[in-house]
């Protein structure tokens, strides 16, 4: 599809530019903002991936936190190389999410939302209770092992892009179609012989793998983690990125992360309160921007793309998770 390939080309060029800038152009501050954007985009994409089956998964925050702690343990206690720490973090997030999902994904809608919220808060409480991982004060000295330390910002960008591309690929695959079918009507999916619970658990596990790696990248970028970093607000901010970017496309989540992270860094440096900023952004988005930035971008570029591409535009069916 030409329209799609134009978009992908733009995204790939932008990715290359960011990569080059991170490695050669950005100072320490620039690199830290780019890493923050990558980590936030991963959390947002993870949350959005579960929205494909129609569930709001606040427990994203918990899997993100589990990933951060597991990778910190791998690095600080055992001195394992960074790739091992990242993979361990992703697997830990996915594993816990399978256990969590096996019980809770039988419920849906409001019940799943509330249970996942409670899980996020309970996970945070558990972190504060384990003395071995620093209880309330958390863990420090989480530095990527030596040969890769200099390249860490670049690695963060590459890993984030690879994971985002992977999620996008899955979303476009047959599996993604099944996810969306479950969102629309799970009884129909069940009736053709697919096990809805297993598919939903699979979706949650993939998303939680990404959240876990995101948490691990966060831990190694910050060098310090504490339970307060992993409250349910992680999921709420992720939702803000998804919602403000636009939930119709994975690039929406990325755009939201870029936009809000940069704006947030700027405003908070001026002394604005994080809570008021994100709260205000969410309320405003719900009142005036229901399709998000991606929706606006799409509307603005549609005439241009149409000129480039003479084939009739595909149906732009709005994908909303609203029941």
């Amino acid at each position, binding site marked *: 599809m030409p329209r799609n390939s134009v978009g992908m080309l733009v995204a790939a060029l932008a990715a290359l530019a960011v990569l080059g800038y991170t490695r050669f152009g950005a100072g320490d501050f620039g690199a830290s903002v780019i890493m923050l954007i990558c980590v936030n985009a991963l959390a947002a994409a993870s949350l959005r991936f579960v929205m494909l089956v129609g569930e709001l998964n606040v427990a994203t925050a918990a899997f993100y936190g589990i990933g951060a702690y597991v990778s910190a343990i791998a690095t600080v206690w055992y001195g394992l190389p960074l790739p091992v720490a990242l993979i361990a973090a992703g697997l830990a997030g996915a594993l816990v999410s399978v256990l969590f999902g096996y019980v809770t994904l039988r419920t849906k809608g409001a019940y799943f939302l509330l249970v996942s919220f409670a899980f996020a808060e309970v996970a945070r*409480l558990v972190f504060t209770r384990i003395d071995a991982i620093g209880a309330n004060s958390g863990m420090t000295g989480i530095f990527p092992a030596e040969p890769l330390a200099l390249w860490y910002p670049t690695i963060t960008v590459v890993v984030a892009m690879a994971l985002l591309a992977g999620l996008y690929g899955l979303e476009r695959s047959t599996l993604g179609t099944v996810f969306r079918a479950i969102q629309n009507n799970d009884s129909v999916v069940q009736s053709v012989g697919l096990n809805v619970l297993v598919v939903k658990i699979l979706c949650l596990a993939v998303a939680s793998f990404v959240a876990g790696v995101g948490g691990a990248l966060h831990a190694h970028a910050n060098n310090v983690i504490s339970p307060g970093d992993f409250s349910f607000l992680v999921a709420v901010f992720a939702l803000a990125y998804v919602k403000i970017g636009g939930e119709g496309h994975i690039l929406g989540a990325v755009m939201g992360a870029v936009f809000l992270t940069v704006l947030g860094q700027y405003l908070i440096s001026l002394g604005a309160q994080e809570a008021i900023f994100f709260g205000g952004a969410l309320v405003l988005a719900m009142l005036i921007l229901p399709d998000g930035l991606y929706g606006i971008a799409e509307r603005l570029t549609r005439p241009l793309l149409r000129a480039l591409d003479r084939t009739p535009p595909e149906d732009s069916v709005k994908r909303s998770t609203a029941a």
Partner: protein
Amino acid sequence: MELAAQLLINTLQIGVVYVLFSLGLTIIFGVMKIVNFAHGEFFAVAALLMAVLVNTAADEFGLPLWVGYAGGFVGAVIAVLVLGLIVYRPAFERYLRDLVGSFILSVGLLLLLQGILLEVFGGVPRVVPRMGDNTISILGGRITELRLAVSLIALAIMLLAYLLIQRTRLGMALRAMSEDHEAAMLQGIRYRRIALYGFLIGSVLAATAGALIAPLTAITPAIGGDYLVKAFIIVIVGGLGSITGAISAGFLIALIESIGGFFLDPSLTTVALFMLVIIFLVLRPQGIMGHAEK
């Protein structure tokens, strides 16, 4: 025996506040089919206002404490009522029966209100001047006069809310609405109007809970959060939208917590409660009284 009486008295004290708080949440879910994450902020607004008003009445005007208590209670409830009206019309009314939209909206509101409360009231814990500090003994269990009075008032409000839902025409409309809103509309019930009433009743219940808890604890703008997690556990166990479920689950959770709090410490009790919810979900996903969404 004395221990049992004491634990029951503790259960009553914690339970009534939990029930008022979760009743509001469950009524709002029933009519609007939304989960209001900002519910805890309404509670916090009332608690903070109660603290400010009682202190002002005593310090600035030299009024007797009970006048301050009564005035503070009324003022807090009215303020929350106004706040409810302000956020309902332009915002919540557009996201009736939209779980995702209303979640985002109410979480945004939660953060916004929490930030504003922190700006306005500051983070320093506030205390309401005490009255009724004498201890009474009931069957060997001990409770202060103030705590007993608060529990009885909360019980009375709970009973009023229950009668309102079960016995009045408005209550019947609310119940019809949460059962099947289309059938209710066919009967000539005006959905938007009833949804507004349901939202306001729910918010006022949160306000009464906040105003009643104010004299018993130190209040910060973050106080809503702790109650919100507990209330979620209560409505999952009791069944979303169920009145009797919220009442029975509220007292059940309070009982477990007061027994658990006696032997464990509070944050471990919350973890234990969550484990209970998980077990509960495996055995009975639709709650004690509720029906799981189909």
